[in-house]
């Protein structure tokens, strides 16, 4: 039903088709733009250099010593298949630097090595950069929204299902958990900040801190269940989950997003692109949580939830198996809009020169290069259009989903 109504919305349907194309590009970017040939035959031997790279990355094969530090374009081939764009995003073509446009005179050995979309200040191919940028944008969307969904769904579920009065704990358990949380933060993170600051990736010290916190919580709960024997301590009190989560959301949302991002990145030492993605996710869980909460407020009053309670199902089972699957539709809408927001945020940061290492390319960092030479229109126009198109695609899909799932039209 929803799918039928979504399909009748032509802009949304075409956006979805384009998204599939974009995902295809992101997935096969290495085969579309690579400085190494897809297949070649040298002195009677066949090679698949691009596939061999994947093998090395996975640790299955060792690099072939004869190809270390060679310029692939200088080799003598009996037979060779190049990728459609014969450059990687990080390949530096010194003969065509800086800023050669698509219609400028370029120094290339063969026509197929022409820089169709021009080069940047270092002589890197813009077409290859666009393809690598697609992969980066999709990755940002997926990683950021996964993080956002993880926190957003869990907190939204708790807030919406339990509200302010339905999660009732005994006094002693509330107290013990409160104390344990403060203690876990102090001993796990505040007091060990020296160790955390020095630790490298993967952060073993961080794991130790989390483990310490969990141990403290378990101890607190075991102690609490022992102390629950005393009637005075066993009086039940409601934990206002909804209140706590909603106030946390309001505090987070009251700070302008991009400024918050910059502030956090300023604190982190040498922020990588992964840090950027995760932090964008951290900042956008609030919208997911609010939608999940709103859905849960509606769903938790429906008879099938009560039927599940009467049949003695555990709260956990009711939330995951009965409430969450029915709340997923609206989450999809938020995720579609969220991906658009995440891509835009990453582009802004890359434009400011934050997050990416030297050899990484994204649409935002390409636009940044255009600032150095205003005549290099190809560096501003093409990635700008790509960002615009991708964000529009996700927004149209989000609109289409929202319309298709509108409860009022359902009747």
């Amino acid at each position, binding site marked *: 039903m929803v799918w039928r109504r979504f399909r009748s919305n032509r802009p949304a349907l075409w956006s979805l088709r384009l998204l599939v194309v974009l995902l295809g590009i992101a997935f096969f970017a290495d085969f579309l733009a690579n400085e190494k040939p897809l297949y070649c035959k040298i002195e009677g031997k066949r090679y698949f250099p691009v596939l061999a790279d994947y093998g090395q990355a996975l640790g299955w094969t060792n690099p072939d010593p004869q190809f270390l530090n060679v310029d692939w374009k200088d080799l003598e081939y009996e037979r060779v298949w190049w990728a459609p764009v014969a450059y990687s995003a990080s390949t530096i073509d010194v003969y065509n630097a800086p800023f050669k446009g698509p219609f400028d005179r370029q120094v290339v050995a063969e026509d197929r090595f022409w820089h169709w979309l021009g080069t940047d200040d270092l002589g890197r191919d813009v077409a290859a950069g666009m393809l690598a940028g697609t992969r980066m944008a999709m990755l940002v969307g997926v990683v950021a929204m996964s993080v956002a969904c993880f926190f957003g769904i869990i907190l939204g579920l708790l807030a919406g299902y339990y509200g302010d009065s339905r999660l009732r704990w005994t006094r002693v358990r509330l107290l013990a958990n409160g104390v344990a949380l403060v203690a876990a933060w102090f001993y796990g993170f505040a007091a060990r900040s020296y160790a955390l600051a020095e630790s490298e990736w993967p952060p073993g010290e961080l794991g130790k801190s989390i483990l310490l916190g969990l141990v403290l919580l378990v101890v607190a709960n075991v102690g609490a269940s022992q102390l629950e024997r005393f009637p005075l301590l066993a009086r039940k009190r409601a934990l206002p989950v909804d209140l706590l989560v909603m106030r946390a959301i309001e505090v987070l949302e009251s700070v302008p997003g991009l400024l918050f991002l910059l502030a956090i990145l300023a604190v982190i030492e040498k922020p990588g692109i992964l840090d950027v993605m995760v932090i964008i996710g951290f900042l956008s869980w609030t919208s997911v949580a609010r939608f999940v909460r709103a859905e849960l407020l509606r769903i938790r009053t*429906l*008879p*099938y939830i*009560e*039927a*599940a*309670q*009467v*049949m*003695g*199902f*555990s709260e956990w*089972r009711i939330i995951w*198996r*009965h409430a969450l*699957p*029915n709340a997923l539709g609206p989450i999809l809408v938020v995720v579609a809009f969220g991906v658009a927001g995440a891509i835009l945020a990453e582009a802004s940061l890359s434009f400011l020169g934050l997050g990416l290492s030297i050899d990484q390319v994204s649409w935002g960092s390409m636009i940044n290069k255009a600032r150095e030479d205003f005549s290099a229109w190809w560096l501003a126009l093409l990635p700008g259009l790509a960002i615009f198109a991708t964000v529009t695609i996700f927004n149209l899909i989000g609109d289409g989903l929202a319309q298709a799932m509108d409860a009022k039209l359902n009747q």
Partner: protein
Amino acid sequence: MSATKLLEIIDLQTQFQTEEGTVKAPIDLLRLPEKEMRPLRDKDLAMIFQDPMSSLNPVFTCGSQVLEAIQLHQRLDRTRARQLVLDLFARVQLPDPERIYAAYPHQISGGQKQRVMIAMAMSCQPQVLIADEPTTALDVTVQKAILDLMSDLKREMEAAIVFITHDLGVIADIADRVVVMYQGRIVEQGPVRDIFLRPQHAYTKSLLACRPPVDQALRRLPVVRDFIDWREVDGQRTMVERAVSVKQTLAQHQLTEAEVEARRTRIQSGEPLLRVVDLRTWFPKGRAWWGRPQEFVKAVDGVSFEVYPGETMGLVGESGCGKTTLGRSILRLNRTRSGEVWYRGKNLLSLNATELKDLRKEVQIIFQDPYSSLNPRMTIGKAIEEPLLVHGILGKAVERRERVLELLATVDLRPEHYQRYPHEFSGGQRQRICIARALALNPKFIICDESVSALAVSVQAQVLNLLLELREKYQLTYIFISHDLSVVKFMSDRMIVMNGGKIEEMGWPEDIYQKPQQAYTRRLIEAIPRGLIRDDGF
């Protein structure tokens, strides 16, 4: 309203298989071209819908909505139009028209909303008023008041009313002529007396018979199948009417007094299965600034009763009387304020989570709304299987599947329904699925909370029969909650009349029906549509 719309509505009704109505001044609208239709639609035709809750716009006051309708159709200045609205409100017997004029829809009751809708429909003095199940969503007492009002208006305004409903009892009160529809076709029509006293078509007979009678005790209700057979002839299903009268069929199913007496003594000989002592469920209303509740809505206020094993305890009252809250409180779906609920020597209200989980197996509930009491994302097989899985009743997946298929068969559903989703089923079938799910845990005690109120009369009869069969088969004990006195009387061994959170009256259904002690009970009984009382009414 356009001609196509009228056509659409009739199309829609045929899906429900039943329709009865009265037409005083028939007009052939379907052949009318759209141009000539428009003035007719503006002035001569008006419509009242079933659900008064959603047919008024919540963001405008009731008065301004009627005012808008008037100004759309008649050239009246604002003050005169306003006066007309107030007149109309007074005419549909709304108390304090000035207040209702300024009130928003959520501030007035369901019955009052339906009156506002009637006022709006009458504002342009239509010649034909089409009322599509206008009282189905209302309480019996409110329904009676609305029906009285519509009869009055019919006389006063000389308007024809097309009254569409699935409930023959209502028809007898308001109609002059009746048209009976079955599977998209008119099967019978005539003056209301003839239809009720000498029904010709088998379907009409079954409709007359399947409404629970208030003056007889029956073993089971007659259903459509008692009157109509379906046979395969040359690969086509054809309808074969059985030559039986309503009276014969009812007599066939009648319980003798001796049987009733025997059942009563048998039930009362045991120990009570459930004992409710001074139960109070209060909901906080106003709160002081530090959060302590100051005022309470006393939904259940000091209720005590006992239910014996195998008994069906009926619970009847208008909406808002606390009967549903009582049922939910027994199951601990609400927080209670004080009182005790003893079930087999255990106080349900003081059990901890693990003890409660064990008892959940024995006490189940069947809800009113068959559309939202099943998880839309779960196949019905999975839904019925889940309680078995959670309580670890049958270890192997194959055994559980066997049991689910067995349960489906018990409630007259087919094995191939196992893989289907709830939206593929009709209301009656869904209610059967809910019953099967409740039975999965082998409960001893089931609370039926308005379980048949959302169903059409003929489907309702089938579900009630099923509940009775299951009561005998599994030795079940029911608390049967409904706003419909005749249904409760048919189902129950004893019944309770509730009002304002308190028990108004408790006793044998015949005694309550024939010699009501309280004014409130009398009012409820008088409000039952008189079409149910077959022989002495005409």
